[in-house]
């Protein structure tokens, strides 16, 4: 052993041991491991001895061996002490602490949930790695005289033109989705499939998790989302399997080339099946490939790095001139770019494939969330300022012993930080618990992310909220004058009292505002859903028809749908519970009905909405005829050339003249004649006024005369009827039976009109629900606050109440005294809330063409409600206080 004395164990391990080990154990431990090292060195050689030495050192790294951290810092020990004291104080005032923690926790949970939703909306498509460089094209055509077209989808030749003419464009991506039948034989499912440029996955950051991730979009390849891979192939390996898809007239075999992770909720693309559009003619009419006035896919461009968007946009007019030449005049055809991340919340651009949300709602919700949190913070501030009188002695003693003002402020801030810490932890727990309920209620798919960032954010929130809420009370406490405290007078209380009272008023104000606001929102929603839209919507069922496979051309496809509808209707007719049978090619609750534009005889551009129906449309939906007559099912002429206008169209085209028997003021319409006028019924959303509408059985004359068309919803006819049976399951059974025998190879797709209507106002309903939840929570928080204050007031007034009782005051009078404290504040808050609520809600309501007026009842209701809540919160303690035996409160001083 002596021989190898010069060989030492690895230095780093030795030093590490010396670094962590408690000094009192170091010698024996070091001795033992060194001895073992020497033995092993002799036995096994250097390498193994070194390794085992390192291992031994690691194994000694145990809690009991580790040096305790003895940094001697006044700051740290004061902070520890502060927190210790804070914990004791909080533990002593259990009711107060519980009220504070629960109100901040509830407020925090509400804030977290709402901010998750807001964050989802604000981060829409902002996660793409190359997102900064991705833009979507928009086009504005303006031919004067109101003939304006603005769209964010684009003509097909735009993409190659951009790549050819603008060197800064790295690549372009065309994205479009459509519905195709997937599968074979009887089990075909109508699915939404996106057809995109093959480099889609290179440009947008959607993860491919299985299969070919380099080049997944070959001509016959399809990429499925995880969910769809499971839907179609279950547990089997989906990659490599084939799916039959009908595109146009062809049945094509697509091979699953890759699986992508399900798209996150904050993207507008929301694709489940993606195929390549490399073979453009498979998806588009060959003529459309070169047509500049036919819009189809959305075109995205990826700019090269370090290229400013302005320089690229500046080159667009030249490009338009080059590719369109003489077809348009200067300024008639304008192209532009919109940043990918801006699309979701920019209502200035018309939506196409990617959904556009209302940014106002996001801001409204963000404000509501913040308000609730603020209310919770106010609770703490008012309650602890109120407590300050009780703790004045403590401050006095501390000051006598030599505490500085700064130190006192820190001490009280530690209290509020500690409270906030517990509250935030509870709040996060609550948020986790309530998330499913919230998702259910609001129709969202939110998740709480657990990342380092969010934890850091929470710590930040704890410190910020803790400081904010604690700042005022700690100032008040540390400002108390030593002499006056010890002498026993309560000076300085008046100003603090004022501040506290105004905070209470502010808090009540927010509560009343939220209550009235959500009442108004609810009223507007009810109004929209229940208002007389001018047609029968209850119990109305619609069934999607199909064009015969292989029919091409829109008019033929619509006609084919009508033919199928006739067959289907004739079978349904025999069921007694089915009434008001009819057909129409657009259904209520969808927007984007066929729009036809034409230039009239004076050169004025005019537009109207066109719906193609059978003769039973107006009678089926119980739409009133105000002039002329309805279609007659037996008249052949009605089927060919009769049209019916709505009142808006009658006024638009004919002013005050009687329209019956007249023709539309355009040149090229086929033979047609107005036979009647129906009452305006609200066929689109109540956000907008009723537009001119023409109802026709034969679309051909109308299509002849129009020069511009836009159709943004499925124009294939739907059969509708009123279901008089009383079981919803009955409809399904009946329909399935009839459908099976009529169109065995197609999928049955049906729905209820009122359900569709409800979906149309989903956005409003969601905001209303979230705001409703926030209102309930704010009521809760305000009640906590009031409860705490009541306890406080009762405590400070124990003697007064005792003396009053001795002098013969009845419990009722004592309750009155306590109530008076708060009712003045409530009345004040109520009065201030009226103009604020009125102003804000007027702004919200101005979004709707058909809206309610804000009535007195709203304010009366919310005022009464808040008064009632206040009474019920206060009365328990008031009653208890008024029943205390005065002896108990007066015998000790």
């Amino acid at each position, binding site marked *: 052993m002596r021989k190898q004395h010069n060989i030492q164990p690895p230095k780093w391990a030795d030093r590490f041991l010396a670094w962590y080990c408690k000094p009192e154990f170091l*010698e*024996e431990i070091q*001795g*033992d491991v*060194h*001895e073992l090292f*020497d033995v092993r060195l002799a036995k096994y050689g250097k390498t193994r001895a070194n390794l085992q030495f390192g291992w*031994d050192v690691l194994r*000694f790294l145990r809690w009991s061996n580790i040096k305790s951290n003895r940094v001697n810092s006044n700051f740290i020990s004061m902070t520890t002490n502060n927190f210790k004291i804070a914990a004791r104080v909080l533990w002593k005032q259990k009711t107060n602490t519980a009220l504070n923690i629960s109100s901040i926790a509830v407020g925090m949970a509400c804030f977290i949930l709402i901010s998750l939703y807001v964050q989802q909306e604000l981060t829409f498509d902002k996660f793409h790695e190359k997102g900064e460089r991705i833009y979507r094209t928009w086009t504005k055509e303006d031919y004067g005289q109101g003939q304006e077209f603005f769209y964010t989808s684009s003509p097909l030749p735009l993409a190659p033109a951009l790549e050819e003419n603008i060197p800064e464009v790295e690549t372009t991506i065309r994205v479009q989705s459509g519905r195709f039948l997937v599968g074979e034989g009887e089990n075909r499912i109508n699915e939404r499939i996106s057809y995109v440029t093959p480099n889609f996955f290179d440009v947008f950051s959607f993860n491919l998790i299985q299969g070919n991730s380099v080049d997944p979009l070959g001509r016959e390849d399809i990429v499925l989302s995880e969910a769809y891979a499971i839907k179609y192939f279950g547990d089997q390996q989906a990659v490599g399997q084939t799916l039959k898809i009908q595109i146009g007239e062809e049945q094509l075999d697509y091979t699953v080339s890759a699986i992508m992770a399900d798209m996150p909720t904050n993207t507008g693309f929301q694709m489940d099946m993606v195929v390549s559009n490399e073979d453009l003619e498979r998806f588009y009419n060959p003529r459309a490939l070169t047509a500049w006035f036919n819009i189809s896919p959305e075109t995205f461009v990826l700019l090269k790095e370090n290229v400013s968007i302005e320089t690229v946009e500046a080159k667009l007019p030249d490009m338009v001139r080059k590719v369109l030449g003489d077809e348009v005049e200067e300024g008639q055809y304008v192209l532009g770019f919109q940043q990918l991340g801006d699309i979701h919340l920019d209502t200035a651009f018309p939506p196409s494939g990617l959904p556009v949300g209302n940014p106002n709602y996001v801001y409204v919700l963000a404000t509501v969330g913040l308000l609730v949190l603020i209310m919770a913070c106010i609770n703490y501030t008012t309650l602890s300022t109120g407590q300050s009188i009780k703790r004045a002695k403590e401050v006095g003693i501390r000051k006598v012993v030599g505490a500085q003002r700064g130190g006192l402020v820190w001490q009280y801030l530690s209290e509020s930080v500690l409270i906030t810490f517990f509250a935030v932890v509870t709040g996060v727990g609550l948020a986790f618990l309530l998330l499913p309920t919230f998702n259910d209620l609001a129709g969202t798919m939110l998740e709480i992310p657990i990342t380092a960032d969010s934890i850091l954010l929470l710590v930040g929130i704890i410190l910020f909220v803790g400081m904010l809420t604690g700042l005022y009370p700690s100032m008040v406490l540390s400002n108390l004058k030593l002499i006056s405290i010890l002498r026993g007078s309560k000076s300085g209380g008046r100003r603090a009292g004022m501040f506290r009272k105004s905070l209470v008023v502010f808090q009540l104000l927010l509560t009343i505002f939220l209550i009235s606001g959500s009442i108004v929102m609810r009223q507007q929603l009810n109004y929209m859903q229940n208002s007389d839209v001018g047609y029968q919507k209850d119990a109305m069922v619609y069934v999607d028809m199909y064009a015969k496979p292989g029919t091409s051309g829109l008019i033929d496809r619509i006609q084919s749908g009508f033919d199928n509808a006739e067959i289907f209707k004739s079978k349904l007719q025999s069921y007694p519970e089915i009434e008001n049978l009819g057909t129409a090619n657009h259904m209520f609750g969808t927007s984007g009905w066929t729009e036809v534009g034409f230039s009239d005889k004076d050169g004025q551009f005019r537009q109207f909405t066109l719906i193609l129906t059978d003769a039973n449309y107006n009678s089926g939906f119980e739409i009133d005829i105000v002039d002329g007559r309805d279609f007659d099912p037996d008249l052949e002429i009605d089927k060919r050339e009769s049209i019916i206008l709505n009142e808006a169209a009658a006024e638009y085209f004919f002013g005050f003249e009687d329209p019956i028997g007249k023709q539309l003021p355009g040149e090229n319409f086929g033979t047609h004649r107005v036979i009647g006028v129906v009452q305006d019924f609200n066929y689109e959303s109540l956000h907008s006024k009723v537009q001119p509408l023409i109802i026709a059985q034969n679309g051909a004359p109308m299509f002849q005369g129009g020069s511009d068309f836009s159709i943004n919803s499925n124009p294939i006819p739907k059969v509708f009827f009123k279901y008089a049976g009383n079981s919803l399951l009955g409809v399904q059974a009946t329909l399935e039976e009839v459908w099976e025998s009529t169109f065995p190879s197609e999928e049955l797709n049906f729905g209820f009109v009122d359900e569709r209507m409800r979906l149309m106002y989903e956005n409003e309903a969601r905001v209303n629900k979230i705001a409703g939840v926030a209102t309930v929570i704010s009521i809760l928080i305000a009640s906590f606050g009031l409860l705490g204050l009541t306890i406080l007031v009762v405590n400070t007034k124990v003697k007064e109440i005792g003396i009053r009782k001795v002098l013969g005051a009845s419990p009722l009078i004592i309750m009155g005294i306590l109530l008076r404290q708060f009712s003045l504040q409530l009345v004040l808050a109520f009065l201030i809330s009226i103009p604020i609520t009125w102003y804000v809600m007027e702004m919200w309501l101005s979004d709707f063409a058909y809206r309610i007026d804000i009535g007195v009842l709203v304010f009366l209701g919310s005022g009464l409600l808040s008064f009632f809540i206040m009474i019920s919160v206060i009365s328990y303690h008031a009653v208890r206080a008024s029943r205390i035996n005065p002896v108990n409160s007066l015998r000790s001083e």
Partner: protein
Amino acid sequence: MKGTQLGEFEELVLLTVGALYPEAYGVAVMDEILNEIGRSVNISAIHSALRRLESKGFVKSDMGGATNERGGRRKRFFELTAFGKKALDDAQELRMKLYKRIPDISFGQS
């Protein structure tokens, strides 16, 4: 403190300390356990067991004199206390008491 229960490994270490007297220190205990029982134990485990036994009062320890090996570092020698001896006796007795109650039949001799 976990009370004065004697765990299996602790009992083993305690016995070894008794047997090695007066030369019982960390590495010696470890070697003895390896040689007598064939059980390979890390030195750190021995140390914690010894420290636990000491805090329970079963052993006491003293630092020895300077040594020539191990870089001149001293060793901590452990010896059994009367209380530790009693704990071993109790354990032994309990074991024997139960052992004697095992009826023959449970040896499977039928």
